[in-house]
């Protein structure tokens, strides 16, 4: 549904400090996918996703939504931003209303939604991120914990009912429990509501748990794009890009080095557990 064709983006063009943040990036994100974008800090992840909803205009190249150039004159920018929900990094810094409900209502209200429909959307969005609308709705967003603020910000995007949800480092700086909760909600949005999800992250564990497909960026270029399993099968290459492995994958590979025949391409703790049990069973059979 989103397609980038040779997108190049240069910040501060024509000044002594100009930076090429994206260089000739081509990729496609299909409807219903859940894709992870990983890469070291400064590799251009945030710049890339801001092209998806038209906040940045490519210096060269084109971006299409459903085969329509999003910068074509007849494209309605608000409709574009309604369809492609983008959550920025540290989204709790964008909250401004007096109550949580009012803040979540900001997006849909800008789209002209009002009355009961608005109410329904706000309540629905809060519920989907696990916040009770009656308890949290009337509270001030500034009196919440960091994890709660971030969930309010996600609700603010969900209330616009987008087809695609892009989350830029949604778990950065959170405690492990909040991180887990947010990832669970994201997974549910994909599994139960069929939202297309793009997850930008430098937590390998998060993308391994959620994403089938990974896009790896390095200094403004896409250097790998494919199944998560195959990307994590090459740890040396990832290390060269300043990236690591999910902890469970690392664990499996270390066990293998020590001689236990564990499958090296596990991505989740459950898979890891199954693989280790199997390897132990195989060895037990061999010994007997």
């Amino acid at each position, binding site marked *: 549904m989103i397609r980038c064709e040779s997108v190049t983006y240069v*910040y*501060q*063009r*024509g*000044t*002594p*400090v100009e930076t090429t943040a994206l260089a000739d990036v081509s990729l496609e994100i299909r409807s219903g996918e859940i894709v992870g974008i990983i890469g070291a800090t400064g590799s251009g992840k945030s710049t890339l996703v*801001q092209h998806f*909803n038209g*906040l*940045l205009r490519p210096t060269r190249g084109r971006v299409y939504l459903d085969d329509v150039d999003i910068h074509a004159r007849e494209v309605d920018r*608000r409709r574009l*931003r*309604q369809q492609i*929900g*983008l*959550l*920025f990094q540290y*989204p709790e*810094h*964008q*909250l*401004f209303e007096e109550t949580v409900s009012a803040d979540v209502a*900001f*997006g849909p209200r*800008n*789209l002209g939604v009002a009355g009961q429909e608005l109410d329904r959307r706000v309540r629905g969005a809060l519920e989907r991120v696990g916040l009770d609308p009656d308890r949290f709705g009337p509270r001030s967003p*500034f009196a919440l914990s960091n994890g709660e603020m971030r969930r309010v910000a996600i609700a*603010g*995007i969900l209330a*616009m009912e987008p087809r695609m949800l892009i989350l830029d480092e949604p778990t950065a700086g959170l405690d492990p429990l909040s991180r887990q909760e947010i990832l669970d909600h994201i997974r549910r949005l994909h599994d139960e509501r069929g939202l297309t999800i793009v997850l930008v992250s430098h937590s390998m564990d998060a993308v391994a748990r959620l994403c089938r497909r990974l896009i790896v960026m390095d200094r403004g270029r896409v250097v790998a794009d494919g199944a998560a399993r195959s990307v994590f099968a090459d740890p040396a290459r990832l290390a060269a890009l300043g990236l690591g492995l999910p902890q469970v994958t690392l664990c499996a590979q270390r066990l293998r080095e020590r001689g236990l025949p564990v499958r090296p391409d596990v991505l989740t703790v459950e898979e890891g557990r199954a693989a280790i049990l199997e390897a132990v069973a195989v060895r037990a059979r061999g010994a007997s």
Partner: protein
Amino acid sequence: MELLRSFAFGQYVPVESPVHRLDPRTKILAALALVAGTFAIGTFAGLAVLTVFLAAAIAAGRIAPGYVVRGLRPVFWLLAIAVALQVLFGEGGGHPVFRRGPLVVTRENLLLGAFYGYRVVLLVVATTLMMFTTSPVELTDGMERLLRPFRRAGVPAHELALMMTIALRFIPTLLEETEKIMKAQMARGAEFSQGSLVRRARALVPLLVPLFVGAFRRADALALAMEARCYRGGEHRTRMRQLEMRRADYVALAVVAVAIAVALGPPAAWHAP
């Protein structure tokens, strides 16, 4: 959507050049002298002399001319309005060159308007050149040293310098934050550049509230960090970077003085009819 692009005025350009290497005090004094000189000069020829000098300094500082022109953009409208007022509503009398109804444009007012405009351009170029070639930290160090003799008279040199350092340090941060929050709210369907004036003013609320909240949060964190490092003001503080006036600095100041002197008192021959 890129806010910082138009913000060239007062941005340090980190390149290597003889001008960059000068002591910050030299550059501050030179800029002050040039500003004062520009106000004292009363002839086009004088301004032309300074223009040549500034052009040479820009070249020596390895600053792209286009970048200097860009630095003029923020004051462009101010400049245009000032010149227009002078031309249209300056003193009566003189030689009219254009007349429509009550509007009379005289040759004298045209010349005066051009002169004032020229002068403002030179003022801005002189100060931006200093800003382009001196890092904010050097600038405040230089200021503090220059103000130090006035401490006896009650001038809080260190505190002023600290305030300036903090302000300069946080202006880019605030701009970045502004850009980010604007984009985040635009992603939620906000529009900042459309609609009536009232609507646009109201559209600023979702921008300003988070901006202020963020500024207070930062101020808090900064105060805490300073206390944690036992900061207690300027008394007995030593410095890591010692400023030092070298020969190049005295030469530079002498060149500036000569340029201003020439600009102020052009030889009588220049006035020959």
